């Protein structure tokens, strides 16, 4: 295509230009590899990042002791400290589940907090060893009243308002 001999430099094997070019081709391929790894290893497994409490309870028999994440809102007055961590109830879609968490909960763990617990179903409760806070997208300097969790707009699946409190 080019009538000037523009090509010779990059095609000469061993020329610095060509070596540089090969290096960048390899870099581009590494990026593609990382993307594939993230999509297959990371995203594919976590596209369903969590199961709301209602689903987790419904599928309890099928789930067995399989590890998964469950999301819901902490029931006010249900938090009890244990030797290994905390025990509390999680509510979502009108369904409540007992959670036995081992480990220190994060700072923002409190009544009405929308949380994600990771673990599996045990005999009496969901045995969790990882507790994350799933905070909402609303920001305000004034604190909302805690006696009504329905006021929390981010009820993990957005349906917490239906379980308690007036519709917004």
């Amino acid at each position: 295509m080019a009538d000037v001999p523009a090509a010779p430099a990059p095609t000469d094997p061993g020329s610095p230009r060509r070596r540089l070019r090969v290096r960048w081709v390899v870099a581009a391929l590494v990026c593609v590899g990382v993307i594939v790894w993230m999509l297959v290893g990371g995203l594919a497994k976590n596209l369903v990042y969590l199961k709301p409490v209602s689903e987790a309870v419904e599928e309890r028999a099928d789930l067995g002791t399989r590890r998964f994440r469950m999301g819901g809102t902490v029931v006010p007055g249900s938090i009890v400290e244990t030797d290994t961590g905390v025990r509390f109830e999680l509510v979502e879609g009108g369904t409540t589940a007992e959670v036995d968490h081992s480990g220190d909960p994060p700072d923002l763990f409190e009544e009405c907090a929308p949380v994600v617990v990771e673990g599996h179903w045990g005999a009496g409760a969901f045995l969790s060893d990882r507790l994350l806070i799933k905070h909402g997208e609303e920001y305000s300097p004034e604190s909302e009243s805690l006696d009504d969790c329905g006021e929390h707009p981010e009820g993990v699946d957005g349906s917490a308002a239906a379980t308690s409190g007036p519709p917004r």
Partner: protein
Amino acid sequence: MTSTYSPDGSAHSGGARPGAARVPRWSVLGAATVLALGVQAVLALWVAPADANQGDAQRLMYIHVPAAWLAYLAFTVTAVASVLWLWPRTRSVKWDLVAGASAEVGVVFTALTLALGSLWGRPVWGTWWEWDARLTTTAVLLFLYLGYLALRRTGDSPDERGRRCAIAALIAFADVPVVHFSVTWWETLHQEATVFNPKLETNITGTMAWTLLWSVVAFTILYVYLVRSRTQLAEMQEGLEERELANAIAERIETGESAVTV
């Protein structure tokens, strides 16, 4: 327009402009950027009230959100510039260089977004990193454009590079809406957008909202400054490369050597 496209595959610079002689007068823009960012820091760290729920950790929002916005903006500019390059009537080497410059700035801000998100996630969520859809698609975005930047350096004529990179930029851009809507489409740990959510409900008010707005504007000024200087650098490098190539070819023709020293 400093460069024109010529059909023989060798884009050439018009006259001596992109060379060394001209020292840019961007100090006004630079000063505006510094000022805007200075005010931004004061607003974000002192003026804005702490969030009732998250406390001071929420202040990270005032840099995390604008950084993410800049990444979106930068990759959008890259995509538009790539289309302008691909469209024969607007094709100019300039668009290819703008696309590359904007992508580099976008990569910096995507990486910054991820790092700031991690610093925010640790105290608030209780984790540095989760493979949820928002975080993963953002990480994918970073590597898509890192790959794009690597692709830009794989040699060839400006024409070939332009075509290849423009197509790659458009493919990579497909991830931008996926990142933005990931929080709506899938269950994620990451919350939904505070402003550009499906309901277009602004979930932030008062001083907090103004601080966020100022932050976004300040970062946008910063973007203009960065892309402008990066594009200028690209124009200079393009000119240098052309000369280098011309010299190398001339040398080759003169001496008949097979190796070219750069």
